[in-house]
């Protein structure tokens, strides 16, 4: 099932579905990076609330996505990682270094706003 990408103001929001396949995830990565350029988005939120497993492949794909997005001048925040999923990721050794995380969509948007303000002050 393809992941829908919504545009909200300067941000893109992608809500990942429970039964997302490897192919869907890779496709999402390409699509998000393209749209960030197309809409000149300042930030991306990946909502993984319904994901009940985050294995090394998914974590790597999301981390790569965040890195590519940053190269295009935007920030990525992953929101909604479930308690069990977070614990299992740590056991696997997946820490999503360099990627912002927040509890839910609301916090994720606030975190992006903070980033954008900081960048504005920094003159970029």
């Amino acid at each position: 099932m393809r992941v829908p990408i919504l545009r909200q103001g300067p941000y893109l929001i992608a809500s990942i579905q429970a039964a997302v396949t490897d192919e869907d995830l890779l496709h999402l990565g390409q699509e998000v990076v393209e749209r960030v350029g197309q809409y000149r988005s300042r930030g991306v939120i990946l909502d993984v609330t319904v994901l009940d497993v985050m294995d090394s492949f998914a974590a790597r794909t999301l981390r790569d996505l965040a890195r590519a997005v940053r190269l295009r001048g935007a920030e990525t925040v992953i929101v909604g990682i479930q308690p069990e999923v977070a614990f299992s990721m740590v056991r696997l050794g997946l820490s999503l270094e360099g990627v912002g995380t927040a509890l839910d969509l609301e916090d994720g948007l606030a975190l992006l706003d903070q980033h954008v303000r900081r960048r504005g002050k920094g003159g970029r």
Partner: protein
Amino acid sequence: MDGETRVPICRDSDIILARQQGRALAAQLGFSSIDQTLIATAISEVARNILLYARQGEIILRPVSQSEKKGITVIARDEGPGIPDLTLALQNGYSTSNSLGLGLPGAKRLMDEFAIVSEVGKGTTVTMTKWTQ
């Protein structure tokens, strides 16, 4: 005890099916929700390993018991090219197929018992078990 479940692995979506079945069995056996997730994640890792290295194979899910302990055994079997150097394959960061290289060592960390048998040209069998506390 119920019998075992077999899930053939030959495409992406089979990985999801295998871990869903694994989680359901783990829940039925009384594993905590954290353990259910650890098991489902380990299944995901070994199932992807099958796809990456052997293209096809199967996952077998089996309830097991030992005196008063209950557990789940997950067997990932393929008839692919096999792994020439198992020690290397179980090291963190090792990978030949552009994955994170966490597949096998990661799965090993998530489960209580882990064994792997591989023969070059014949295939690979990973057997791993987790016990309820």
